[in-house]
């Protein structure tokens, strides 16, 4: 066992004090002299043709500096990570109620607001496409000219009918999942301005500044090098700031007015305009042998991506990839459809399609388990993937596979060992308790097809500090701390000497997105590469300075010391390098390993490296009202080597909470294209009083050779299986089997009454 100084230890978050004391300034907190204020005029209809836009009255309002429409866009009037199908400002058509039609820049926010009402837009309303399945039919009105099916994925492996012929039990069901909102604390916003060098600066909370830079450049028709994007620190992302939020409109406002502009969405505007988790309908037909082994799975998944593509295609692809769970299934037929509607917009969200299909697959397994009278742990152990297995999609599991380890650890948790006692402790006769278990895998990184790359620069300053520069921004997930730990461990110096810079196109190299559970893995590997280049150089120079052979030199604390006890400080070394004009830094690069098979038509499938997790829930159901409370939870996580122990536990806790909210209460309700949940008084997320006092987190370190010190990603998997664990626990408590989330009291009550689920 390697002895680590920093890796896996409990260390303070590098940005912890500033955040806990409120001293940290987010980008939406930054002001500038002469700042103008931007506002967006949004659509009045979920689906309509634009017949005319008259901005003259708004322009005439004193204090209005500029009113912008599609006519003011110098480059491509569109953004979108994969296809730029979402207009910066709509020209001929609006496709959802959050669509931007015009922008106002004014001296004062109240004036900007007032000017919005003076912009006259003439619409010709179109029939609203509000149901993804109906949208797929040929006679549906079209959201986009090319048709409503944005992308299809089809996986065939084995012979599914032959598989069903071997099955002793076939379970067939339809599942529906809600439209979850990221609910980051900091709504979308930031400021844009020209600096002294003439660069257009766009400082916006976001998950990938380098890609924002390119998207902004495409809209403005500018060389990307004329644009600087800063996106760290970001007040929460969860996938909702992966795509462009307001960057292109904001940049255009500063580009046109040549003055600093701030644009920051209200919560209501954030709700209607922002990305959401795809609601999905999932058709499952699953074949089991009498002993519980899985033999066949036939699946159809329909994802409602709303008005524009964004990452809807890859989200549905990942739902397809994980639709069979972490199980061996020899015969599969899986079809995925990503469909346009006028229901807002859906895009990236922590879990990225995996929570939806995991809910369906784990419920299928539970239904079969009950019929076959098998133990929930045993049926899973029998079917889980092991290293070297062929996965349902046909690729070989060549990387580390720790799902069995997480099951074995979870089985020893207090929740599971004490479950009969815990279940019996009900306070009132109308309360019933139950437990549930569910498991999941989540691919980390972007998969195959497109290289997933990372980069880091590590440099020694004259003050004797190491600066670690990595583009992937700190969005609250704690990657700065993970980077500091990785760098300090590799360099052998004190953690306090590491300063991390992220999320700035000018001051940190492109290291990809802070998404896909990838930033610690990718950035960590890039740091190791940079340190491997830098450290020998530093030791060689130190050897010169000391007049000794570099071979025996080592870095310790803030010094480089020889075996004889002679040494220099890092500050001395840094100054020396500067005086001699020697390079004091090194750049590291990393490109991900990829799987051996690519699924045709599904960019990014399959992954090679996966994170594995088992979660358990103890719930208490009020049989008279249907209200469900999560009383206790347990998580056993294989994210490879633990880099930042507290950070990983924090992710596990936060993920469990987000998954519990998804299972129990969260849903953005849209009717006929109009939002019924507009803010946090109607969009309900859990509070501390809705969450268990005890959540046992067990970190199972199955080392992944390709990761930094054996680490993998963790950000997403931790929110996935808790949802079906909760719904299974509800079934254990009261016999109600939910095939639709959230498990709101009324839905559970209807189940108790034997009525159809849903409303």
């Amino acid at each position, binding site marked *: 066992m390697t002895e680590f100084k920093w890796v896996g230890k409990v260390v303070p978050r590098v940005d912890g004090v500033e955040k806990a004391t409120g001293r940290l300034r987010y980008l939406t907190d930054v002001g500038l002299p002469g700042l103008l204020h931007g506002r967006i005029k949004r659509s009045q209809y979920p689906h309509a043709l634009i017949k005319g836009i008259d901005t003259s009255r708004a322009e005439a309002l004193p204090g209005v500096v500029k009113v912008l429409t599609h006519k003011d866009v110098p480059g491509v009037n569109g953004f979108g990570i994969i296809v730029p199908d979402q207009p910066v400002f709509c020209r001929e058509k609006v496709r959802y109620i959050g669509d931007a039609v015009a922008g106002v820049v004014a001296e004062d926010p109240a004036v900007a607001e007032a000017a919005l009402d003076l912009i006259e837009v003439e619409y010709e309303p179109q029939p609203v496409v509000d149901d993804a399945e109906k949208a797929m039919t040929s006679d549906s009105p079209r959201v986009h000219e090319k048709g409503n099916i944005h992308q299809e994925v089809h996986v065939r492996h084995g012979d599914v009918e032959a598989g069903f012929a071997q099955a002793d039990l076939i379970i067939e069901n339809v599942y529906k999942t809600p439209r979850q909102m990221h609910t980051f604390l900091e709504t979308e916003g930031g400021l844009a301005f020209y600096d002294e060098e003439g660069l257009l600066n766009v400082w916006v909370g976001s998950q990938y500044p380098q890609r924002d830079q390119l998207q902004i*450049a495409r809209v403005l028709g500018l060389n990307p090098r004329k644009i600087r994007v800063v996106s760290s620190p970001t007040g929460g992302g969860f996938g909702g700031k*992966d795509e462009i939020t307001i960057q292109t409109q904001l940049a255009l406002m500063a580009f046109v007015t040549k003055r600093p502009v701030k644009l920051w969405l209200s919560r209501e505007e954030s709700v209607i305009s922002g990305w959401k988790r795809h609601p999905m309908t999932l058709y499952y037909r699953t074949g089991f042998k009498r002993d519980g082994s899985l033999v066949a799975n036939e699946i159809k998944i329909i994802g409602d991506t709303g008005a524009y593509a964004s990452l809807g295609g890859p989200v549905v692809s990942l739902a397809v990839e994980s639709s069979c769970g972490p199980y061996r299934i020899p015969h599969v037929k899986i079809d995925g459809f990503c469909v346009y509607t006028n229901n807002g917009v859906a895009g990236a969200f922590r879990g990225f399609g995996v929570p939806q299909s995991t809910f369906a697959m784990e419920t299928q397994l539970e239904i079969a388990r009950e019929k076959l009278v098998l133990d929930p742990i045993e049926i899973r152990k029998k079917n889980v993937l092991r290293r070297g297995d062929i996965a349902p999609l046909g690729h070989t599991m060549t990387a580390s596979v720790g799902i069995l380890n997480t099951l074995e650890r979870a089985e020893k948790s207090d929740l599971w060992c004490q479950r009969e006692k815990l279940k019996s402790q009900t306070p009132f006769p109308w309360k019933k308790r139950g437990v549930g278990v569910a498991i999941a895998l989540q691919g980390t990184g972007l998969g195959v097809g*497109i290289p997933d790359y990372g980069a880091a620069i590590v440099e020694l300053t004259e003050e004797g500090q190491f600066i670690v520069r990595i583009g992937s921004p700190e969005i609250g997930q704690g990657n700065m701390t993970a980077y500091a730990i990785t760098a300090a461990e590799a360099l052998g110096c004190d953690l306090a000497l590491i300063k991390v810079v992220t999320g700035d196109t000018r001051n940190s190299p492109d290291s*990809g*997105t802070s998404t896909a*559970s990838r930033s610690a893995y990718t950035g960590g590997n890039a740091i190791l590469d940079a340190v491997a280049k830098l450290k020998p150089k530093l030791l060689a120079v130190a050897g010169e300075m000391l007049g000794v052979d570099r071979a025996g030199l080592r870095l310790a604390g803030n010094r480089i010391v020889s075996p004889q006890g002679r040494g220099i400080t890092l500050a001395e070394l840094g100054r020396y390098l500067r005086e001699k004009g020697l390079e004091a830094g090194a750049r590291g690069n990393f490109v991900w390993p990829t799987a051996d098979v690519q699924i045709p038509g599904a960019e990014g499938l399959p992954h090679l490296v996966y994170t594995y997790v088992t979660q358990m829930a103890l719930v208490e159901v009020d049989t008279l009202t249907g209200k469900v409370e999560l009383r206790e939870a347990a998580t056993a996580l294989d994210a490879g080597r633990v880099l930042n122990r507290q950070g990983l536990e924090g992710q596990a806790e936060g993920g469990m909470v987000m998954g519990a909210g998804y299972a129990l209460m969260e849903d953005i309700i849209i009717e006929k294209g109009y939002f019924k949940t507009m803010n946090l008084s109607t969009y309900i997320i859990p509070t501390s009083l809705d969450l268990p006092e005890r959540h046992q987190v067990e970190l199972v370190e199955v080392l992944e050779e390709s990761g930094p010190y054996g680490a993998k990603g963790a950000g997403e998997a931790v929110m996935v299986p808790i949802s079906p664990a909760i719904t299974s626990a509800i079934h254990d408590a009261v016999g109600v089997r939910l095939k639709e989330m959230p498990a709101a009291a009324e839905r559970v009550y209807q189940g108790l009454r034997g009525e159809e689920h849903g409303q």
Partner: protein
Amino acid sequence: MQIKVTFYGPLKRYAQEDGLAVELPAGVKVSDLLDHFGVEDRIYIVILVNNGRVDEEEALKEGDEVKILSPIGGGGS
């Protein structure tokens, strides 16, 4: 000099083959390579040389491995 080029994703339309060997005069830059293939969209692309991101002005040298892709990856968080 010889360099190896791979296009990814939708950009595969410029060259299907992975690690295609291309002969170019010494001293050329990435922009010359893009000209060579007639790459139209010069804004929304990412260029990696030996796995490190560069821009169009980067000078190429013998044996460089160039990867050209759209920045279309994404994921949850």
